């Protein structure tokens, strides 16, 4: 059954290269379109790569210097980073208590948290808007954060709880005996140990906050408070006229942070997910 290692490896690598191409082809096309002038987009014949003399940076320069893109970018960064940080803490706390302790009503509480995942988030827009209005949260950027955090709590708690359950109780018991209180155990032991799971859910949470469209679109009005997805969609479809070059230039730039986050947290990803999902 053992093929010569090199032959098998070559086949595997070939297959993977093919599927990699399929995966990234649309993004390459997007980048190549961003490098072309707006009017060249429906040229004939359509080209995958622009001819060298047709490459232009005008779309990028417009997006970076003339629109409110810079602001939208910062808005997205602010909301995403804070949401992720807050979600990490509260979900880790929930996951810790639900995963490591038993108390009356624990099962029901956990079930309640999880079961809300079957309610599509978009359907809650109207009651959430009423809530936002009551709280004076309409058109205020920081108020996106609690909504996003609430959104991701179920999944994050689920994953972190699973991981926490995998932590041997002996470690915690030992600390208990030594006289540590719950806070100490949580902050000094459980949290660091669970960091792979926290890192991996944070990647998902960052992505959720970074690309969220329906809710931000509903609750944010001012141009300079908008997040990236709304800014991008705003260039699309005005009077049947889409400025694809700008759209794709913005899209390309907005990919960079999430790519960085992913690469940075990448190593935690696999270990963090394994315990969370398998045990779950």
């Amino acid at each position: 059954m053992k093929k010569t290692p090199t032959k098998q490896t070559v086949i595997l690598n070939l297959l993977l290269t093919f599927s990699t191409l399929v995966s990234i082809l649309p993004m390459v096309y997007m980048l190549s379109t961003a490098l072309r002038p707006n009017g060249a987009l429906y040229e004939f014949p359509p080209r995958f790569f622009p001819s060298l003399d047709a490459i232009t940076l005008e779309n990028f320069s417009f997006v970076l210097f003339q629109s409110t893109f810079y602001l939208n970018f910062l808005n997205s960064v602010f909301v995403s980073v804070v949401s992720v940080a807050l979600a990490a803490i509260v979900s880790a706390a929930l996951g810790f208590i639900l995963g490591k302790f038993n108390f009356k009503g624990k099962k029901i509480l956990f079930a309640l948290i999880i079961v809300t995942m079957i309610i599509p988030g978009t359907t809650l827009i109207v009651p959430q808007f009423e809530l936002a209005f009551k709280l004076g949260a309409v058109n205020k950027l920081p108020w996106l954060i609690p909504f996003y955090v609430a959104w991701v709590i179920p999944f994050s708690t689920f994953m972190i709880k699973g991981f926490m359950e995998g932590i041997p109780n002996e470690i915690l018991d030992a600390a208990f005996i030594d006289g540590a209180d719950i806070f100490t155990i949580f902050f000094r032991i459980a949290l660091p140990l669970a960091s792979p799971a926290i890192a991996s859910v944070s990647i998902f949470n960052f992505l959720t906050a970074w690309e969220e469209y329906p809710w931000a679109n509903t609750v944010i009005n001012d141009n300079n408070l908008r997040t990236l997805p709304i800014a991008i969609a705003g260039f699309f479809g005005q009077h049947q006229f889409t400025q694809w070059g700008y759209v794709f230039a913005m899209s390309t730039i907005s990919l960079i942070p999430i790519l960085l986050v992913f690469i940075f947290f990448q190593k935690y990803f696999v270990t963090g997910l394994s315990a969370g999902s398998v045990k779950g």
Partner: protein
Amino acid sequence: MKGRKILALLLIVFLSLSAAYASGAKESQDTKVETIDFWHHYSAQSAENKTLMNVLIPRFQQENPGIKVNAVSHEWAELHNKVLISSSTGSLPDVARCDIAWLPEFQKMGILVPLDSEVPDFEKVSSRLLESAMSTTFIDKNHYALALNTNTKILFYNTKMLKDANVAVPKTTDELVAAIRSLSGKNAKGQQTWGWNEPALSGWNLCPFIWTFGGALTNADQTVATGFVNGKETVQAIETFVTLVKEGGITGFNSGDIPMTDGFGTYRYAMMLEGPWKTAELDGSYPNVEYGTALMPTGKGGSVSVLGGEDIAMLKGANKDAAWKFMTFMTGEFAQIEMAKSGQIPVNKMALASDTVKNAPFAPFLDAIKTARARPTVSTWSEIDNELNGAVHQVISGKKTVRSALDELAVKMDALLK
């Protein structure tokens, strides 16, 4: 180590939140200045928006030192939805630029301020504006807005494509149909071309055809549709339209079609019926395309295009004095002439008589406006529009004949018009 990291993170979170909060709170402390929220749908990158932000609002604020205007640009359909959802929570803006088609719906919801009874100098301000435009603001028994700008659609034709196909600019509907046929097919590069582009199948798109062919959507009172939307002329209009679509003469309403401006600019669409905003778009992205304009070709019903435009309305809960001052300013001669420079057709009589307007590129539109008609001003218009859209789509996809689709539509419309 991790614990400290977490605490640091918490601190950052707390600080950012409070910073953001503080910046938000600071604004409201400034009680000497009143801020009014103005929602509109001038496209963010457009010349109109630049005029608004760089010329009009600064001038207004200069003339009215105690008032600040917070203008927000929304996409057209989004603005409609946002007004709806904001109405449910009372977080409406003070002033909004509304498509004339939305006014009956908004009025029914009770979110518009009846200006003629609430504002003392309404008569004075509104008398400076075109009566036909002001008619769009009269619903039930009151005026609920001021006309802000008007527009209509006229024929844009691609000069080169017509010349190459040896087609003259059509003046009658028969000539139009023939022209569309001649201009459709394959061009020298082997690409498909279409004689006509129609970007959607709503009332805004179909009404010029329906009315020009002599048909109608409803009776004059807007209470009955049967006999009108399925009347002989309307059926003929839709029949002609659908036939041309099936022959490959008309396209544009499909998700996979080249967008209108791009297609016109790359010599794929020969003709279209469009408004004054098109000139700016074409000049911006396709400055080398030569095109001309003409009135909607004449048919049995004359040359009838569809009247569009926007009104400026005061919404419930607004800061009345400040809002009214702004509305007066926007409909005043200065603002109207400035906006005219960006392609917005004014409704202010003095502005219309000015040289700037007389020499403006939208002069061809002014003639069309004289014969243009408004869509039904009923509160259920968006539902009727949706039904119309669906009906014509069904005919095009072959699911129904024109006759049966329009008959069914008439029944639905009768119910909605009650």
